[in-house]
């Protein structure tokens, strides 16, 4: 049974509003795409949507209360709050370097959670 969906491609400022028809894991047709990247984007969004989680972690430090963190690559969109719950358990102490791995391979998604700022003391 073919299904239809509107997807806004956000890869460039044109932001094409794609009309996509798909069945199972196959795209049947795509309209309003102005470049080939539209198909690639639509396919990811339909069958494998993923997002980078960005949040903060409390830190014991002289001047800072938090350090910002992110996943090194996108994690499944539907599980973003599960990843968040893992990050929420973490407390850190300075010093922390940018890029330090806070959680390795979070929930087995192949992404690490890393610090995005250096906190020296």
């Amino acid at each position, binding site marked *: 049974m073919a299904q239809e969906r509107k997807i806004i491609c956000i890869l460039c400022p044109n932001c094409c509003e794609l009309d996509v028809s798909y069945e199972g894991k196959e795209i049947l047709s795509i309209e309003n795409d102005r470049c080939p990247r539209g198909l690639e984007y639509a396919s990811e969004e339909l069958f494998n949507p993923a997002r980078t989680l*960005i949040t903060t972690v409390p830190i014991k430090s002289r001047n800072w209360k938090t350090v910002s963190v992110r996943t090194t690559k996108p994690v499944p969109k539907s599980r973003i709050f599960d990843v968040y719950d893992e990050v929420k358990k973490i407390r850190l102490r300075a010093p922390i370097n940018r890029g330090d791995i806070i959680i390795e391979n979070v929930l087995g998604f192949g992404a690490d959670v890393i610090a995005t700022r250096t906190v020296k003391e």
Partner: protein
Amino acid sequence: MIEKKVDIAVIGAGPGGLAAAVSAKESGADVLLIERNPFLGGILIQCIHDGFGLHLFDKNYTGPEYAEEMVNRLENAGVPYLTNCMVIDLNEKKELTVVTSKGLMKLIAKAVILAMGCRERTRGALEIPGTRPAGIYTAGVAQNLVNIQNLRIGNDVVILGSGDVGLIMARRLKIEGLNVIRVIEILPYCSGLVRNRVQCLEDYGIPLTLSSTVIDIHGKDRLEAVTMAKVDRDFNVDHDTTEKIDCDTLLLSVGLIPENELSKKAGVNLDNRTSGALVDNFYETSTEGIFSCGNVLHIHDVADYASNEGFFVGEKAAEYAKGKWKHSGGKPVKIGNGISYVVPQYIRNDCNEVELKFRVTQPFENVRIIVKNGDDVVFKKRVLKVIPSEMNILKLKSIDPEKDVEVKIVIIDKNIN
């Protein structure tokens, strides 16, 4: 009183100021960078979301990562800097008065680069009626309180204005477990970038109500509710469409204002359109030897562009400090149909190459961007979509500076095409 002389003083260490300091130093000038926060990076530090560095570093950095890359460049270049220090006075002679924890400093510079950034429009500036309870924050303040101070600012949140900071904060608060009820926008379209609308609102099912605004605020002590109503094209409120929304927090994301109080003290003339300085294509202001870049000059959509501007301005200021060229003034750029502003506002008469940055007055589809130099069309580009939230940049290679330059939007007649 501490006294000091320097070739170039850069005021503000955000994306623009950091870049300006690096390039001025690399151009051989003696530079001092002054930042009022206790850290370098300006607003980038609280912008923990990604989307930074795509143009400059070809990487998708978060704000703090972008800042650290820039600070690394600053330290590699060996630029001295002061943090926790605020310039409280600046005059035409380029004498700065700086408050530092070690004392008051008089700094005499050959050139000054203004990079103080912007502030947010407040409830007072919006003139929203109603009570004045706790729980009303501008989006950037909320961003600081949540991301830096680790403070929970509320439970049930309404956001007025679909500017990028508001959209980003909608997602941030949702992720942190707050109930983001809706975003309300007075314009008939979202005023932030499309990718933010999609990834911050649509991803999380946060409704966006267009052509509407907040007309009343309720609650004596802590915010209890806001009243929303529809507006027409001229922003007249339709009082038959009011809806009271219970909430304890209202975020305002309704525009940024370049912070030019210091610039005014130095006699810098401002542009009513941008609220930033009027500059020529070397980014020199009306006050000789004082330059401006980044959000204090005009509001940028992307930090990378503010940095690029800073790199250019740093080099030009260094040239000026070495006496390579003199203050000129130049010919004003004409603002044609569909254009809300152009920076620089003047083109020097000794330049054939110029980069123009501009925004459009409203969203357009299928139009031509045209630049005329006298009677000649020197730039012509057909664009499928152009929106006010995006800054457009175009480079002109060989213009005649003696003739007028005009930027305009021409709507393509579909029938002729």
